[in-house]
């Protein structure tokens, strides 16, 4: 190391002064994985921003087809919203149990979270199936295309989250609450809460503002 610094500073005034500024360690945050995952979430956020923008532009272009007021059913959305919000807090309880190294209570909360997420997806798929069956599929109008893309992309994310949750439950069952599993559980925690944040945008911007006269 000292070899390198003397090579870097030949002929300049005081080599000892230069040595004072030599860094012996890389400057990086302690938990690289969580920061990297956060940056992934931010890039995911940009995907949703584009889809929200597309819906914002096209959301009132009905092409003579059904309007948002006619096809969006708020009671079902209210149930869906509560399911997702409840799943957020149950995942939070799982993280609390994880911090106390209590494996089985944590697994119970994770299973409850997964079931709430599955309920959310079931309701959403039923809504999609109903829309398509009454002829309001994604090909009907620009409004429905952008609606299906935005809400469908969110639903796809939740589905991936549930699959990831099942994988992690299996991992914890096989290997226990080791440090690597805790790191993975915290990454999924961020993913899950992030999806809830996106859903806040969806139910406000798409559903509630969509049915306004």
């Amino acid at each position, binding site marked *: 190391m000292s070899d390198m610094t003397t090579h870097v500073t030949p002929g300049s005034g005081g080599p000892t002064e230069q040595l004072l500024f030599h860094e012996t360690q890389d400057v990086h945050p302690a938990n690289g994985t969580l920061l990297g995952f*956060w940056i992934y979430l*931010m890039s995911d956020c940009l995907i949703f*921003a584009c889809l929200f923008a597309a819906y914002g532009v096209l959301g009132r272009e009905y092409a003579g087809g059904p309007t948002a007021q006619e096809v969006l059913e708020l009671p079902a959305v209210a149930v869906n919203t509560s399911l997702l919000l409840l799943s957020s807090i149950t995942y939070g309880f799982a993280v609390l149990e994880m*911090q106390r190294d209590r494996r089985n209570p944590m697994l119970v909360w994770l299973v409850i979270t997964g079931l709430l997420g599955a309920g959310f997806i079931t309701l959403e798929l039923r809504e999609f199936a109903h829309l398509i069956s009454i002829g309001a599929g994604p090909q009907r109008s620009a409004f429905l295309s952008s609606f299906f893309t935005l809400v469908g992309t969110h639903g796809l994310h939740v589905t991936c989250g549930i699959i990831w949750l099942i994988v992690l439950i299996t991992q914890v069952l096989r290997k226990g609450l080791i440090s690597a599993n*805790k790191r993975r559980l915290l990454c999924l925690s961020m993913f899950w809460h992030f999806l809830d944040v996106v859903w806040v945008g969806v139910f406000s911007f798409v559903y509630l503002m969509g049915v306004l006269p």
Partner: protein
Amino acid sequence: MSAHDELHAHGDNHGHADDFGIHATFGGYLTGFILSVVLTVIPFWLVMGHVIAKSSTAAVIILALAAVQIVVHMIYFLHMNAKSEGGWNMLALVFTIVLVVITLSGSIWIMYHLNSNMMPHMMDTSNLP
């Protein structure tokens, strides 16, 4: 690094390595949940109960409540603060918010004006190049 060094390093980090800098508390989650429920129920009640007659007013209130709820989720569920990960979390978030605002407002603004200026009744041949 020798095996002994590794053991030593692990011993030093014990108790801190596993929480990954996240300090979740029951009170924090409960506060976040209660605030979220309130901030969700109000806009649903506004729309489903037809409380506000004027659509634009209702839309502004819905968007404002959504923004507040997103901040609540960020703080209480995602444990965001200016110091986590040495400030890099916040930096990435601020950058993303800037991009999201440009994307959303830019798209809606441009397309709104495109629509209103390109409608047939607006067509004024004297302005065409």
